[in-house]
């Protein structure tokens, strides 16, 4: 593409100059005009090509416009001067001076300055076309990248949603509720409310980037109430939520996903069940909100590497808080696992 534009551009310059010279029927001998124009074109081609290589090597087009403008002006001045010098050298070598120039009897330095100024208009035109073309293609590439990024985010959201609407959990809950309809109609009614809240939560809160911890905890309470129908006395829950943390912001469904994992791996797989502890505290001096889940169980490599909860939590925290947030999952003595999330206030 570069060579098409480069040769086409200089070709147009050459043709245009001949055309203009013809129209205005200049007083100078035609051969001199033609030779001068060819000299200007060929040296221009050379200089602009070298200029392009320099700009490319300096990665000037990748920089912001405000940053690159001084450098563009400098390169304009330099390339005009070099172009002027080369043109003058050609004039000298092939004696292409117009009579007028000879008459005015300018010394070499003055002549160089005059020719360079003349050439600077050509170089300015070249640079402008070069920059406009670059910014145009770059902005298209940026739009494309933006679209790709948005696509990736949507995919991630869909994956998160699917993981939250765990069909095994939903159908087991519905099955339990059907049994409760006869056994304990009041509990069945409550269970339907809890399941509705949970479904609504996972279907609609995805849009919000952050929600108050209170909202997240309400949802987890509904979730655990449903799980307790299933596990009955095999599951005990300890809440240790500090009151001053309830209004703090957390990413939606994050704690929920971690609690679900704790139930799935920690209690669901053990015939004797166990106790899950969920706590939150505010560390004012460190400017951190610390969330902790402790559950029975042992860590396996598979959970750490492929567990959706672990990887999605890590990447969400990274996106939202960068290095300021921390996520930790460790084995504790007596067959317990502790998950800690620290996020900036």
């Amino acid at each position, binding site marked *: 593409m570069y060579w098409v534009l480069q040769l086409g551009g200089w070709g147009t310059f050459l043709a245009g100059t001949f055309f203009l010279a013809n129209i205005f029927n200049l007083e100078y001998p035609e051969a001199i005009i033609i030779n001068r124009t060819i000299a200007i074109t060929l040296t221009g081609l050379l200089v602009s090509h070298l200029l392009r290589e320099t700009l490319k090597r300096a990665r000037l087009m990748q920089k912001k416009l405000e940053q690159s403008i001084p450098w563009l002006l400098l390169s304009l001045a330099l390339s005009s001067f070099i172009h002027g010098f080369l043109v003058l050298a050609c004039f000298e070598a092939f004696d292409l001076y117009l009579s007028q120039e000879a008459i005015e009897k300018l010394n070499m330095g003055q002549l160089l300055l005059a020719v360079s100024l003349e050439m600077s208009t050509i170089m300015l035109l070249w640079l402008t076309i070069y920059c406009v073309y670059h910014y145009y293609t770059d902005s298209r590439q940026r739009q494309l990248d933006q679209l790709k990024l948005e696509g990736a985010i949507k995919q991630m959201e869909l994956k998160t949603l699917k993981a939250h609407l765990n069909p095994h959990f939903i159908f087991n809950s519905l*099955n*339990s509720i059907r049994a409760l309809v006869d*056994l304990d109609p009041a509990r069945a009614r409550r269970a339907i409310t809890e399941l509705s809240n949970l479904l609504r939560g996972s279907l609609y809160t995805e849009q919000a980037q952050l929600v108050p911890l209170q909202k997240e905890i309400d949802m987890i309470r509904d979730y655990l109430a449903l799980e307790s129908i299933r596990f009955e006395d095999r599951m005990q829950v300890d809440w240790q939520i500090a009151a001053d943390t309830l209004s703090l912001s957390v990413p939606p469904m994050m704690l929920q996903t971690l609690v679900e994992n704790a139930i799935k791996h920690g209690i*669901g797989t053990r*015939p004797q069940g166990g106790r899950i502890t969920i706590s939150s505290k505010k560390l004012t001096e460190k400017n951190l909100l610390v969330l902790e889940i402790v559950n029975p169980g042992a860590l396996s490599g598979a959970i750490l590497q492929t567990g959706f909860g672990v990887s999605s939590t890590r990447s969400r925290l990274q996106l939202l808080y960068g290095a300021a947030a921390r996520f930790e999952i460790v084995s504790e003595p007596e067959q317990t696992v502790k998950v800690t999330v620290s996020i900036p206030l």
Partner: protein
Amino acid sequence: MPIKTILIDDERLARVELRKLLGDFSEIEIIDEAVNADEALQKIEALQPELIFLDIQMPGKTGFDLLSELDRSPEVIFTTAYHEYAIKAFEFNALDYLTKPIDPRRLADAIQKLQGNDLRRTGSTPVLAPGILSEQDQVFVKDGERCWFVKLGEIRLFESVGNYARVFFGPNKPLILKSLNALEERLDTKVFFRTNRKHIVNLRMIEKVEPYFNGGLLLELKGGEKIEVSRRQTLRFKEMMSL
């Protein structure tokens, strides 16, 4: 005579619900319930049910683990909250399963299908010593993601592989965690014959018998497997076949 049935599910409410649904079927007699695989194993061995309803996902051992430990599997209807495609085993076999919450119409279909099967096969089974498995008894075989219910009569050959035994039936030859000696004790000697240290063959699956060097025999089975009969066993084999 009603079908003696055990319900196996870790969730109390799931068992309550299933018991209620089964109340409409007079042919099903629920003789017990179990809350996990270990309890179920004891109850199945002790009570010898003809049918079990089995939840696949249970804490500790899964329903498949339980079946693998049974010498003889009763008829099984799986119950699961997973979609059929979530359980790869179902892709290979038309195992009977019901998704929770259980649709009463699908339950009726499954029970009807069961009665069409040879579940009520009393009379056709020859009287065997206690603990001996008949040709009609089915075993559950699991090999990685795949699993099968196989009637012993369909098995051509057991081959010893360390502590495991390779089971040959149809085009499949999965491994089961049972020693050849343990198997030999439970198999009907009129049907299964120990040909050498490494093999037990199904006599009904023999295609060809050829003399072999050292006075032994070479059997060719219907699947094309060639099995040597040791010299020591050749005499017994000839005696059995002449009967």
